[in-house]
């Protein structure tokens, strides 16, 4: 074993390999992508043997492939981001009814904030909807410990198991022990059994019964109640360690329950509050004054196995408590579970605490949590407990809690730096030299010259950034592949406008092709603009079917986008290099003028794949300060110093788009200036 500084996703890749995973597949998506990349690196380095790893065409393809591998007995690992599970939901729902043979772990990275996503959906909810057990690590270390348990649990009950970390676990790094070499576990091969592997209504009914039966047993395992027997006869293990309960102080009357990384934030917040209480006490001792209040006794619980909810364990946690506050991100899964168990307790005549959390309005109901926010919410929660203990109640209680909160808010405001300067916003933008910039600009210019109104349906990828000013060239963005099909609906409902749909090369293969088939079949007059930059750029440059590069080494023949379009019946297909403005405008004009489905394939590699050319230069004497280069294409390498436009030579890739935009010939390509 060696200790390595690893990001959560990298550490989980090592943990899965050490657990004997034999087949790994998924589709890139932040914050999940580094897991498969790490597995691929290990396989390519010869450090992980007997493992197949691939970027599949999309999440549905990946999960179906893994279902097959699992039926044959292989330990399998699926990876995606939260919205990726929506794409894989069809196989996932049925797979749970059929069951698995080799351990099947569904790794889904959620993204509170969201930092790099379309939704704040909570995969713990998906787990309960699909009736699949879910593990939710609070840290990299805990995730590493959970992964082998997830494989074992999956095999014990023949169920897929979801592991759901969030961005701050996936993209947080720490030092982790890893094995030098790993081996995929041996695979016994597929045994035919149509009563098991073929889903029919009668099989599904039986499957539902099996699911309900195993979920009850798994909930017991999560609670530390030993399951008497598991369906496969494999011994159970202590999974209740992922739901630890700690008492702080004597006879606690209040509780704190946490899920995921909020567990770490809450622990940090508690240590900040304990430190502050100690400091206040020693300051009071020095001054000879009255000692401040220490923190009240409290009970702490992490719920690391949110589904099936560990009710027995939670019942122990709630016993004797008056109030509980819950810190979790995305949705109120733990809060709802606690309310449910509290209700069961009340029905049995046992004490039932008040439960505070996201749903009750006591915590943030959107975006990320953080330790500072939890410090404030815990302060309020503790104030209330201490005041109640002193016998304060009713309006006076509320007033006192509010007064103290206001005093803290004033103190925070006084401490916060106030520089009194205005800073420009710095949102993400298309890179300097990005080929998408030329594609979008050409489409806008072509429609302007044709004097027609157009609607630009965007899609998911770097090119969503084409929505920013000044390009302002993305009118819609919904989900992977939606641009092509949405353009058809917009065309039906708003036929006066020309419909342009933008799709990247990876997204085209992932979920664009069915939309094109629909356009041809139902005769929709749209123009599909394929922005082919030869990579999956937004997620860090993963290969896809159009590149022919695979993770296993041997290169396959790249799938041709134009041949796919031709085969689907698209009759007008134009080509353009997006760095060449006139050529691009011409191609767009031809395709948009064509009646029926048409396509423009804009082809130039992502700037991260090629060596930049020498930067362009601006002639300060010919520059008229019209700022057209800035207001038309918004390249981050072009700035304005108050007098003339300037080029940031560290950013400029010499793509030359700006030289074609300048009306006065003030910007020169490198070869002329050199």
């Amino acid at each position, binding site marked *: 074993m060696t200790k390595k500084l690893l990001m959560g996703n990298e550490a989980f890749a090592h943990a899965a390999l050490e657990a004997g995973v034999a087949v790994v597949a998924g589709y890139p998506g*932040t914050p999940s992508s580094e897991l498969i990349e790490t597995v691929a690196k290990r396989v390519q380095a010869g450090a992980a043997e007997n493992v197949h790893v691939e970027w599949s065409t999309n999440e549905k393809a990946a999960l179906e492939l893994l279902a097959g591998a699992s039926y044959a007995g292989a330990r399998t690992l699926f990876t995606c981001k939260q919205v990726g599970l929506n794409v894989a939901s069809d196989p996932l729902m049925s797979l749970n009814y059929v069951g698995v043979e080799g351990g099947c772990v569904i790794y889904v990275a959620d993204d509170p904030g969201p930092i790099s996503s379309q939704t704040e959906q909570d995969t713990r909810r998906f787990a309960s909807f699909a009736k699949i057990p879910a593990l939710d690590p609070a840290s990299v270390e805990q995730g590493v410990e959970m992964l082998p348990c997830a494989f074992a649990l999956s095999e014990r009950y023949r169920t897929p198991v979801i592991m759901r970390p969030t961005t701050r676990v996936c993209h947080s790094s720490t*030092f982790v022990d890893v094995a030098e070499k790993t081996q995929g576990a041996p695979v016994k091969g597929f045994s035919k059994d149509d009563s098991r592997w073929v889903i029919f209504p009668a099989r599904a009914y039986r499957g539902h019964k099996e699911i309900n039966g195993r979920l009850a047993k798994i909930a017991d395992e999560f609670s530390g109640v030993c399951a008497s027997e598991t369906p496969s006869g494999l011994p159970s293990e202590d999974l209740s360690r992922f739901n630890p309960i700690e008492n702080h102080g004597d006879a606690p009357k209040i509780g704190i329950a946490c899920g995921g990384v909020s567990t770490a934030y809450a622990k940090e917040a508690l240590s900040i509050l304990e430190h502050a209480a100690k400091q206040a006490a020693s300051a009071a001792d020095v001054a000879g004054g009255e000692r401040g209040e220490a923190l009240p006794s409290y009970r702490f619980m992490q719920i690391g196995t949110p589904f099936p909810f560990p009710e027995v364990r939670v019942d122990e946690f709630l016993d004797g408590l008056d109030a509980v506050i819950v810190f979790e991100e995305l949705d109120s899964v733990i809060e709802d579970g606690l309310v449910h168990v509290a209700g069961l307790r009340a029905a049995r005549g046992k004490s039932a605490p008040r439960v505070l959390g996201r749903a009750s309005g006591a915590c943030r109901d959107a975006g990320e949590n953080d330790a500072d926010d939890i410090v404030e919410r815990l302060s309020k929660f503790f104030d209330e407990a201490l005041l109640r203990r002193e016998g304060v109640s009713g309006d006076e209680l509320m007033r006192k809690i509010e007064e103290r909160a206001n005093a803290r808010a004033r103190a925070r405001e006084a401490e*916060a730096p106030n*520089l009194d300067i205005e800073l420009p916003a710095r949102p993400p933008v298309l890179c300097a030299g990005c080929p998408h910039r030329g594609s979008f600009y050409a489409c806008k210019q072509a429609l302007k010259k044709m004097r027609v109104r157009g609607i630009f349906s965007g899609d998911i990828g770097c090119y969503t*950034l084409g929505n920013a000013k000044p390009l302002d060239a993305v009118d819609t963005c919904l989900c992977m592949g939606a641009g092509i099909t949405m353009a058809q609906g917009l065309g039906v409902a708003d036929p006066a406008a020309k419909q342009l749909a933008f799709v990247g090369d990876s997204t085209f293969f992932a979920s664009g092709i069915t939309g094109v088939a629909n356009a041809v079949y139902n005769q929709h007059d749209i123009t599909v603009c394929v922005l082919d930059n030869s990579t999956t750029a937004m*997620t860090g440059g993963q290969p896809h079917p159009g590149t022919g590069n695979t993770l296993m080494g041997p290169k396959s023949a790249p799938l041709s986008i134009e041949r796919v379009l031709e085969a689907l019946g698209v009759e007008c297909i134009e080509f353009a290099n997006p760095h060449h403005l006139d050529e691009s405008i011409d191609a767009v004009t031809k395709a948009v003028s064509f009646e029926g489905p048409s396509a423009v394939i804009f082809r130039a590699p992502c700037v991260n794949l090629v060596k930049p050319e020498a930067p362009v230069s601006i002639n300060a004497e010919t520059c008229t300060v019209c700022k057209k280069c*800035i207001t038309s294409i*918004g390249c*981050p390498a072009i700035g304005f*110093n108050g007098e003339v436009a300037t080029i940031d030579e560290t950013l400029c890739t010499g793509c030359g788009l700006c030289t074609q935009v300048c009306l006065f010939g003030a910007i020169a390509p490198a070869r002329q200036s050199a």
Partner: protein
Amino acid sequence: MKNVVLTGIGGQGTVLAAKILAQAAQARGWHVRTAETIGMAQRGGSVTSHVRMGNEGEHVASPLVGAGAADMLIAFEPGEAARMLGLLSAHGVLVTASNVKQPVTASLSKTVYVAAPVLEALERREGATVVVDESALLELVGNSKALNIVLLTVAISQRDAQGNPLLGISLDEFKEAIRVCVKPKFVDMNLAAVDAVCKELGLR
């Protein structure tokens, strides 16, 4: 606990800088946890890396540095320093590059975005503000991509009131961490950059 926040613009190399710091801290036997901005913001947006080091034997729970809790803020661009200043303790040290990078929003706006007022405001703070003339140093080093190493060298060399390294990491330990974290073919170039910056600024 030593908390360091690195802030800059996607593509400037904050992730590697955070990794080097974490490696140096771990080599001293400290528990370390970092957090990165990965994803959309890496396309030229504001990015932040958090490095938390348990220099007194503490276990680090949360990956994120809280408000006013950073001992040092290392900024790859002065405007980004100002944006993240809320994380730096009032007495904490700010090490910042001195040249502004124009975001497209600024180029489009009528207000010109320049460094002077930002740096003046930063220098008014209670704690020390170390403004690094990075263009001169990058020219000296001969590599425009070495901003992370240049800034880290200055950061590592900062001393507390007793004259001890503020981050508790020596220049030699920093160099060893570079050897571990940087791709082999770039190690010598980066170590030479450290030496050149130290010589130029009289750091040790």
